[in-house]
């Protein structure tokens, strides 16, 4: 029943423009990003950004989203410094993912700053979401 409603909602949104997302949280976020200028999403760009390496002075001189989340979004990752296991990122393997707007925004903020040395743009976040939601190989 719940799935049914979700599917209907997603379908409504997708016809409005963007992608078919798995959760209400993601739909809402993508709409917000669209209102801020990121009208389309590009999962392939999201993947490129996900695996890109950034140079940093000091500890962990080479940083990337994959430093903690690995290249395989359906497999568990490991925190680069503490070694703590991080549950897999893709909603297909971990249904808790991308279901909580506050949580997603909180980690985007922290992880973009740590990895790239700055906050991500809305377009980058939209692309990341599209890729994490459907991590197809490009």
């Amino acid at each position, binding site marked *: 029943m719940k799935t049914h409603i979700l599917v209907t909602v997603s379908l409504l949104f997708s016809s409005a423009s963007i992608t078919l997302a798995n959760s209400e949280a993601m739909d809402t976020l993508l709409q917000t990003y669209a209102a801020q200028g990121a009208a389309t999403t590009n999962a392939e760009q999201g993947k490129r950004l996900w695996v890109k390496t950034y140079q940093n002075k000091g500890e962990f001189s080479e940083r990337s989203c994959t430093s903690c989340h690995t290249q395989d979004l359906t497999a568990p990752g490991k925190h680069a*410094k503490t070694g703590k296991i991080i549950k897999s990122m893709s909603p297909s393997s971990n249904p808790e993912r991308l279901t909580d707007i506050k949580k997603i925004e909180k980690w985007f*903020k922290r992880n973009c700053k740590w990895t790239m040395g700055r906050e991500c743009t809305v377009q980058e976040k939209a692309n990341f979401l599209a890729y994490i939601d459907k991590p197809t190989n490009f």
Partner: protein
Amino acid sequence: MKSTLAITAIIFTIGFVTLPVVMSDSDYGWGKDEEYDRSSTGVAAISNPVYKEECGSCHMAYPAGLLPARSWTRLMADLENHFGDNAELDAATHQSISKFLLANSADQSNYRRSRKLNNSIRLADAPLRISAIPYFRHEHDEIPERLVSGNAEVKSFSHCNACHTKAEQGSFNEHDIHIPGYGRWDD
């Protein structure tokens, strides 16, 4: 099915035996018997869900009774530069976690381990790391480097739960120590 029942029954029994011990962890009433010694090796377990979620995502959620209030205040003042990581929080969450930490800090606790940690710190100091506290150093000074920094599964003393299998429940009992690649620690 039958074995599940049996296990449940055992857990239930253990729960009942240990519950009063944990709840009455003070210096009174238990004398020198073994149960007292067991519970006295611990600090209060964490039960705050917001704390567990926010401060337990990158490492174990450290029990609040491991650092004094002045240390927690210092640590919470700069979460954006948190040991080389970014752990910043929104204002409301920050406030609720600070309140929780200060109310349950080592200097507020009557758990013995918390008091010992706290009493070993000079009043002028506010260490950010539990692993830098004099009492902590003293308790761990016999453990060779190769089992810690030279051990990929431990890396540093910060990762209590790599060796103390019940650290997240606030228990540091010797019987629950298992050093990866080395085994149990009994001396």
